[in-house]
């Protein structure tokens, strides 16, 4: 599904990702873990088109998407959430979600003015779908509120609803459980499993091992920009190099 080959990215002279290679299989949850500064978020940024790697390739469904840019990558079906949930604060919750849908006719300036009937029919369906997603994630009661008034946990859920609204083939979740109440983290974990059951592939960055234990089929461990090992959570926990990377020994 997603094939990351020898990817390297440097901020100035420091390699944040240095020769990373691994594959994310279809319809599974792959965890990406590692100590701070391991290069996980930089790698997510490279895969999602925010950063152009200095070397290596990123292939998605057999197509080279290296350095395509955020918009083009999203249109291929790779949708991400953010480490800090970046919600659109002045927009209502439901508009945050509706924005994410792909292929909206009324997003063209000319259609928005002169093709009203066409996009209004689509808007009705989109609103329904957004409502369903928000209810499914427990945000049904706040759908009309300004997104800027939501709590931290609600923002995380909104971030996820928005990503799902985009109809992703590959979902990149960057720290989806960071800073949220354990019950919300559990809700997110349950939903992620259901998302994967529906055929979507998930690559999730997380520090919370309990959370990862609930959702991940296997785990890739990174340290200092490189892949250390890969396996089930129990396997990597017992791996000497992983222990050394985390404990600094």
């Amino acid at each position, binding site marked *: 599904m997603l094939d990351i080959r020898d990817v390297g990215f440097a901020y100035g002279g420091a390699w944040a990702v240095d020769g990373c290679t691994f594959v994310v299989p279809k319809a599974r949850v792959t965890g990406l873990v590692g100590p701070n500064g391991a290069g996980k978020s930089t790698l997510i940024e490279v895969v999602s088109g925010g950063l152009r790697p200095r070397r290596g390739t990123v292939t998605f469904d057999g197509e080279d998407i290296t350095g395509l840019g955020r918009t083009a990558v999203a249109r291929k079906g790779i949708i991400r959430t953010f480490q800090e949930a970046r919600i659109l604060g002045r927009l209502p919750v439901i508009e945050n979600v509706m*924005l994410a849908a*792909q292929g*909206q006719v009324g997003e063209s300036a000319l259609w928005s003015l002169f093709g009203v009937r066409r996009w209004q029919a689509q808007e009705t369906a989109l609103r*329904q779908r957004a409502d369903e*997603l928000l209810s*499914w994630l*427990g945000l049904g009661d706040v759908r009309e509120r300004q997104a800027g008034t939501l709590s931290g946990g609600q923002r995380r859920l909104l971030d996820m609803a928005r990503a799902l609204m985009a109809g992703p083939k590959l979902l990149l979740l960057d720290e989806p459980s960071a800073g949220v109440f354990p019950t919300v983290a*559990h809700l997110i974990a349950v939903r992620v499993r259901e998302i994967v059951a529906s055929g979507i592939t998930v690559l999730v960055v997380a520090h919370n091992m309990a959370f990862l234990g609930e959702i991940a089929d296997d785990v890739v461990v990174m340290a200092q920009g490189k892949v250390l090992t890969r396996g089930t959570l129990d396997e990597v926990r017992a791996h000497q190099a992983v222990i050394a990377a985390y404990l600094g020994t």
Partner: protein
Amino acid sequence: MAYFLLDLLALGCINAIMVVGLNLQYGYAGVLNFTYYTFVALGAYVAAVTTMGAPPTNFGVEHYALQWALPWPVGLLLAGTAAAVAGLLMLLLTIRRLRSDYLAIVTVSVGFIVWNFITNYIPLFDGSNGIFGIPYILNGAGVDEPTYTAEILAIAAMILAGCLWVSWRIFRSPFGRVLRAVREDEIVAESFGKDTRAAKIWVFVIGSFMAGVAGGLLAFYLTAWSPAAFLPEESFILFAALVIGGSGNYWGALVGAFVIIELLSEISRYLPSFGHASVIGAGRAILIGVVLILILQFRPEGMLPERRLRWYRARALPTGPAQGAPPAGTGALTAAPLDPSMGAGGMPATGEYRSAGARDRLRAIFRRDLG
């Protein structure tokens, strides 16, 4: 008194067209164009030189380009088009590399370059002397001033209504939603596959077109135009009007134009003079500045804040489970079938939602075959 009111209303409508255009650029999309009034000036010049014939001798020697003597509606259309093309060029040259505040700095620079070029290159628009004797439109030459003002008011009001309609339509559309997303967080918009560059270019061009048309109307009304009419501070007065009225809200733009520019600015022109001649002008600028500071301090969203679309608050819909209490198994979602007309852009319409297993639920939500 009637003439005074007519004059205020006519200028108010013309200024409102400008602020509505600026609202599209800044209020909707967050694009800071600190040289917006340059596009107004460009429209004024183009409307003048495309509708004027050879320079009239009774105003002395004048130099200006084109001299096409076209009918005034064509001149007005060309005024808008010239401003739109200028806006397009400016954005195409800068948008690939620059965002937000850097783009704003470039707009200021472009404004100074254009102002100096027009002021010093005499064959174009007669340099710092400006253009006089711009023809009256309709039957303006044969009527008294109040009647001509009323005619300008009627035309300006109709054009303003059209601009408001465009703003209203864009605000309610998915295009408007993309613009608001660009304003809030461009990276998020891009991460959902939105063409933010195209959105900004479109809204910039539409806003510049409105500026050009307003400039053309102003030129026809004043029958004269010169570099002294578009000093950099004019753009900031329009920004003040928008911020005080309520950016992001087309009604706010309208209120800002009439309250700030007309009440605070135009009315002061009619005050009896006292002290040095510049006192009233300086006092007007100070007054606008004070009102702006007070608004930003106590009501930063402006007099009329951005509206929430009532359209989204449609009917009673199923609400989700309480946060933190994930629904066990199935049945969390119950929803009516989708509108069968849904189908464009990779979102094919499929059957109704079934409250079954996770796979079926997600399929029903996404309306796509996930294989």
